[in-house]
């Protein structure tokens, strides 16, 4: 028992080739599913929030199976901050653009004056733009929440 404990403390806990390989195979499919949920958010259950959480969960899964450094190498802190702000900016930008173009806040049919596609098409396309913004913001915030909590804000080693 003691020998096993020493061997277990010597290496990173949960350092198993089975987990690493299965996570490496699983992560692209999780990300594809997250993108599918975001893109189909206005026809079917799901949307920006759920798809963003699924995308963020794929990076969290990577950090759990490997370590925090691998996760940060695949999705850097700078890119994380830029994507979070871009997502919030897309959301508020589309909403404010509707108000500037003469409609109400988040009234997408007003964007018809900018690019004439027809108000009904704009209502469908505007919610898609907003979903993309929400998805980006939620993904980045979920990943940075996990990084900060698991490493105590140090970003050097964690779960």
């Amino acid at each position, binding site marked *: 028992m003691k020998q096993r404990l020493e061997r277990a403390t010597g290496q990173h806990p949960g350092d198993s080739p089975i987990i690493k390989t299965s996570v490496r195979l699983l992560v692209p499919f999780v990300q594809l599913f997250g993108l599918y*949920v975001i893109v189909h958010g206005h026809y079917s259950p799901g949307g920006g929030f759920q798809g963003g959480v699924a995308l963020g969960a794929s990076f969290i899964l990577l950090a759990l199976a490997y370590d925090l450094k691998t996760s940060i190498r695949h999705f850097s802190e700078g890119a994380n901050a830029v994507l979070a702000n871009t997502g919030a900016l897309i959301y508020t930008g589309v909403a404010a653009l509707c108000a500037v173009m003469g409609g109400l806040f988040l009234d997408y049919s007003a964007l018809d004056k900018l690019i004439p596609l027809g108000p009904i098409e704009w209502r469908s396309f505007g919610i898609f733009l907003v979903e993309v913004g929400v998805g980006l913001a939620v993904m980045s915030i979920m990943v940075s929440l996990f990084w900060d*909590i698991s490493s105590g804000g140090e970003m050097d080693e964690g*779960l």
Partner: protein
Amino acid sequence: MIWQLDLLILLLVVVCALATITVKDLLSATIIFGVYSFLMCLLWAEMGAVDVAFTEATVGAGISTVLFIAAILRTNRRSKD
């Protein structure tokens, strides 16, 4: 909606909720809380609220369990009270 299935899942939800607040080991409490979230997701999907069930499955059973485990890693595993 099948009321027998609803009743069974609801019973399991109540059992999981009581187990979460009574268990002393915080890691066990977190895992039971994940089970609770997943059962709530099943209940919502069964009652027709697929969107809410989706949110519960991703956030409740997925992210919050991981965040709780990450928080427990930074504190003690045993509950004092």
